[in-house]
């Protein structure tokens, strides 16, 4: 028991330490420019798209599957959004709804092949990766669809008004504290021995401090970027789904041992299909942010994004063998990746070095994970 709590804490600690070291290093290397409000805002906006993709991907990987099609799917969905907006002048809400609906359908389509037709997800989504890109190029005739409307621009380019932003973050802090306090009370009532009350409080305290510091930084520039608000809301929802719902529990069980889960009377096929459907919706959200940021639908949009999403999940402690992973970890993974991107760009590190460093970090993260697990 003791060991297990320790490993999950260890993993969290390792990730936070890595993040901290990256921040310290780049801050010194750039004479503080890295943690300037402007750059932090920029960094977070860069993280939003991979972050949202990672939220969907982490469920897929926890269920012991993989989705290689998300890059192409994001391109296709972003293209659809741009076409609806630019060519047909659909109202923005309708465009959003249709895009998310299309994401759900594409995700369920992938999921149906995987769950019911038993084609390995690697193959199904590899096929999707090719086909979705092909559909996108066909739909757009290979040209960029631009310019998008100003209401489209709100999704990816605007900032939350200062008053709203501050109240949202303060509410979040209060909620966090209340949650820890309430759980503690409940544990007292049910006479459950809390294994690490200090750790819980420390975690809440650090989270509040980090949130407030970030708020101060972001407000110091233009406020909280809208994509970050969207990602934040999705993090909360996805964490709730993963930790508190029967669906989330079943996804972990399916990844842990699909046969045993089936023997327990769980409809594993349906749940697996839903996982891909959920992932499709996350891809649609990321696609909307992307199209809005670019102000256009591009036939090359989202190229290789699936690899960033998978890397984020894996760096965040998700096991490709299934059954293990958290939404928070995946987001941290995404943040680590984009911090490296951002910091190295600021230092004018050539692109080829950036790719090499990112590859090395991915390998190192998983190697460390394998090592610590083995030494147990």
């Amino acid at each position: 028991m003791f060991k297990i709590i320790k490993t999950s804490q260890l993993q969290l600690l390792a990730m936070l330490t890595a993040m901290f070291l990256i921040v310290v290093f780049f801050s010194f290397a750039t004479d503080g420019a890295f943690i300037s409000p402007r750059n932090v805002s920029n960094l977070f906006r860069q993280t939003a798209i991979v972050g949202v993709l990672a939220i969907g991907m982490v469920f897929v990987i926890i269920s012991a599957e993989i989705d290689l099609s998300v890059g192409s799917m994001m391109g296709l969905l972003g293209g659809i959004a741009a076409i609806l907006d630019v060519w047909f002048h659909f109202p923005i809400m309708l465009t959003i709804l249709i895009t998310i609906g299309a994401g759900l359908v594409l995700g369920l389509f992938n999921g149906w092949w995987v769950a019911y037709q038993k084609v390995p997800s690697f193959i199904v989504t590899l096929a999707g990766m090719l086909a979705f890109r092909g559909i996108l190029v066909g739909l757009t005739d290979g040209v960029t669809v631009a310019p998008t409307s100003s209401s489209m621009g709100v999704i990816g380019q605007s900032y939350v008004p200062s008053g709203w932003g501050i109240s949202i973050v303060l509410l979040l802090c209060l909620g966090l504290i209340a949650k820890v306090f309430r759980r503690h009370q409940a544990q007292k009532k049910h006479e459950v021995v809390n294994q690490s009350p200090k750790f819980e409080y420390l975690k809440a305290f650090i989270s509040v401090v980090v949130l407030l510091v970030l708020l101060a930084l972001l407000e110091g520039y233009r406020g909280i970027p809208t994509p970050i608000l969207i990602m934040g809301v999705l993090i909360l929802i996805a964490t709730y789904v993963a930790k508190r719902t029967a669906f989330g529990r079943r996804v972990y069980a399916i990844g842990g041992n699909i046969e045993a889960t089936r023997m327990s009377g769980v409809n594993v096929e349906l749940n697996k299909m839903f996982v891909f459907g959920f992932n499709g919706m996350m891809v649609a959200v990321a696609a909307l942010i992307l199209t809005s940021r670019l102000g256009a639908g591009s036939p090359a949009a989202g190229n290789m994004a699936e690899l960033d999403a998978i890397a984020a999940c894996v760096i965040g402690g998700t096991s490709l063998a299934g059954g293990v992973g958290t939404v928070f970890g995946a987001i941290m993974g995404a943040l680590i990746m984009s911090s490296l991107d951002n910091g190295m760009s600021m230092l004018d590190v050539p692109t080829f070095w950036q790719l090499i460093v990112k590859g090395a970090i991915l390998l190192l993260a998983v190697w460390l994970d394998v090592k610590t697990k083995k030494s147990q």
Partner: protein
Amino acid sequence: MKQPLLDMRDIVKSFSGVRALNGVSITLRDGEVLSLCGENGSGKSTLMKVLSGVWPYGTYEGEIYFQGKQVKANGIRDTEALGIVIIHQELALVKELSVMENIFLGNELGSFASLDDERMHRRTQELLAQVKLNISPDTLIRELGVGQQQLVEIAKALNKDVKLLILDEPTSSLTNNEIEILLRIVEGLKQQGIACVYISHKLDEVLALSDWVAVIRDGDHIATKAAVDLTQNDIISMMVGRQLDELFPREPHDIGDVILQVNHASAIQAGASRPQVDDVSFSLHKGEILGIAGLIGSGRTELMQCLFGCYDGQYQVSIELEGRSHSIRSQRAALKAGIAMVPEDRKRHGIVPIMGVGRNITLSILDNYSTGLGAIDEAKESHDINDSIARLKVKTATSDLAIKNLSGGNQQKAIIARCLLTKPKILILDEPTRGIDVGAKYEIYKLMFALVKEGVSIIMVSSELPEVIGISDRVLVMHEGRLKGEFGYEGLTQEKIMNCAIKEAVLA
């Protein structure tokens, strides 16, 4: 006196705090056969894993000397280099490769770039002759029967200049004829001065073959005695440490009317020549424990899979539960109808290893805890978990501990707890005590009697005949997919069941 070939001294091995071996010592000289006896889960296999280096030096206490030198193996390669070869219960041959390729796998003759096929071919023929196998070296493994595969394994061991051969239940799936051949080969090896550790439940073989018999019970070394001084009963009483009626706590209980009627169950695998279940009909009474016996492959498990809706192939069956007919085509449908099953293969079909004990227990009934927004009512859930853990006496540090850290017996109890939470009318237990220590077995039997007293009906499939006789109210025996006999428990003997399971049909 000649120095012993093998000397294991005071071996202690623990798994997450539980002692699997508690100071076991064995010695063996060249050309001697030592049989290791003990119940499932008594620590025999663990001891052999220590000896063969599966558990490397440092993960256990105690010392091992081989040919006078201390062994500090880091893995199975190190011990193989010394001439210690283990042949596992589960065969480790590559099915798609030929006999020759398997025998030389990892030790291929010739250079890296070009293999010396001719030499390997000749050598394989010699080895096959030595184990009296009349097959071509180019035969693919998958074309061989289990017994022949076992012999190929031995040939493979002989190729490695073996000094000590460990056979882990080699005859459990062999025919009498094949056993005969195997025993003669071991005799032959003995003449050549090769020592052998023999693990088997078949005590007649043990007594016929061995010089020494060592008995292990619950990790303790009970005794090592010369085989000539022992009878089968001596070994059994050392193995179990108590009398049979103490092992099986039969309690009187009322048996009601027929609750389940199964008619014309048939199941066939695609491409198979004969059905695995062949037109089986039987009934089960309320509050009854129905034992199902038969050899491995007799269709017992497959019959249960038909009832639970999880047979992997074509099947048909008519199921009438409490007078209502049910069509059960999935595990979900079975659970809904009130049939729960504890599967035979706990690791593959039972536990979700990295999940907590508690979450494993509630996996079947998550819908019961559903509040708004699909959330789980955790207070209600942990209440059920704590109740289950207390009732079944699952020994775990906390309910959050990953279930893979528990002993087999406690894992099994957790899986039974999962089934019970679905409030089943019929509980199917497929090999409920396989690989479980005596204490946990006893608790599971106790629980079974408590359940039937509450009106649950139980179907128990088991290969352990004493268990079938000691627990069941009625016993069905299967043979090649068919029902061959039906017995009441009174006056039932292992011989009667075996005769029925192997030979001709017996009219009940």
